[in-house]
């Protein structure tokens, strides 16, 4: 009967801890830890990543204890509504469709979408500069929507690809003149590698809330009174530069939404 005793003791201890935590005020955040560098699990099973650090900073500012609840990404919104946690903090893009179901804080950061072209080609991400040129993009991505909507209609040839590596291959081979993708993906998958040595970012990140989204924010239940507190914490962390510093640490550039 020893194990049963141990279990009971453990369970009561757990209840104690939870009770104590409750007294200390907790804030529960839901995430799916399979999307590095934003959220993932380290070798010893601890949560880590950009979103986790951001969440911890928000909780610290709100003087509450952060509790993370893991959930599959497509089940995050239902779980939020079922009150399994108070906010979604899982690199979730703010979109009109999701806004119908839940509220969001203001955008915390924007994963930048940027064009890559041959160094010294003087191509810029504008329809004037790209007229008659061919631009490659990943099929089914939000940047494909952007290119189809704004560039393909203005004389730029947009070629969609099955996977991102094929885009880089054709960029090197010269089949396409430029490629549009997430800045970080371009850096990790291409620009930092030998094949990408003659290529560089061309121009500033693209921006278009309708196709590219407004950015990534924390999702909360509609009408949740806690949202004002969370928003205040985010605003102050943006203002004092804590978020920007964290972004520099992770991405070597500031992707925090202004």
């Amino acid at each position, binding site marked *: 009967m020893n194990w049963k005793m141990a279990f009971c003791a453990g369970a009561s201890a757990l209840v104690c801890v939870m009770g104590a935590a409750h007294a200390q005020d907790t804030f529960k955040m839901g995430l799916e830890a399979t999307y590095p560098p934003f959220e993932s699990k380290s070798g010893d099973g601890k949560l880590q990543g950009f979103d986790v650090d951001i969440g911890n900073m928000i909780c610290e500012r709100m003087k509450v204890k952060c509790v993370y609840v893991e959930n599959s990404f497509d089940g995050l919104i239902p779980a939020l509504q079922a009150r399994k946690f108070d906010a979604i903090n899982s690199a979730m893009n703010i979109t009109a469709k999701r806004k119908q179901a839940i509220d969001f804080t203001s955008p915390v950061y924007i994963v930048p979408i940027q064009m890559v072209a041959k160094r010294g080609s003087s191509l810029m991400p504008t329809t004037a500069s790209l007229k008659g040129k061919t631009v490659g993009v990943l*099929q*089914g*991505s939000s940047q494909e*929507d952007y290119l*189809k909507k704004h560039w*393909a*209609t203005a004389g730029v040839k*947009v*070629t*969609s*690809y*099955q996977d991102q590596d*094929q885009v880089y*291959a*054709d960029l090197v*081979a*010269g*089949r396409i003149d430029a490629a549009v993708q997430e800045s970080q993906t371009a850096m990790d998958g291409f620009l930092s590698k030998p094949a990408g040595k003659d290529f560089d970012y061309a121009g500033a990140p693209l921006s278009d809330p309708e196709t590219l989204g407004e950015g990534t924010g924390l999702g909360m239940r509609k009408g949740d009174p806690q949202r004002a507190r969370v928003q205040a914490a985010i605003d102050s962390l943006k203002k004092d530069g804590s978020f920007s510093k964290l972004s520099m640490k992770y991405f070597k550039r500031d992707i925090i939404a202004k």
Partner: protein
Amino acid sequence: MTVIETLQTYWQAYLYNDGSQMSGLAMTLWLLVLSLAIGFAMALVLATARVSQYKALSIPVRLYSYVFRGTPLYVQLLLIYSGIYGITFVQKTELLGMFFCNGFNCAVLAFALNTCAYTTEIFVGAIRNIPYGEVEAARAFGMSWFTLYRRIILPSALRRALPMYSNEVILMLHATSIAFAATVPDLLKVARDVNAATYQPFTAFGIAAVLYLVVSFVLVYLFRIAERKWLAFQAPAGR
């Protein structure tokens, strides 16, 4: 989004245009027609070479057919699209560079070479199945090699090959669904787009499946008419 709403939003992309270029069913059919036409014409020549008694003619064709029937079409497409264009010589030669730069050309070339290999074998089988008496009679009549093929062997072989060839055409229709690997926006690519936009895979791919099915049905029907017309001599007698 219901099926009806998806259809209302994307029917143009599914059928013929995705807003900037030809796409969907029209692109699939265009690929199919072009590659079948090229493959058929080449197969006629190659099949006669393959049955030739001259080894210099038959061995290269056997080798070609062995290579193209022995490797997956997908690999052939990638080799032609990515592999060949990666060769510096091809890029530097103006005509070759222009041809291989275009993904559509690469797709048509891969499909045509592949279907040609299979079609050649089908024709070879049909040619060898011609009753020897017919050939002998033609020879006795004093026909030259060319006339013999034109008047006796090819007309008869092509008729006999119809059922097998209809099968190859249907398989080719299905094979075009890999064209997007060469950035050609065929029917399946549009289905992938719709899936990405609506998160409704069953609807998105279901519509594509129905369209493929309709085309298959039409093809089967056309071949049935053709068989009734040209294979009438093989129909059971006494009707």
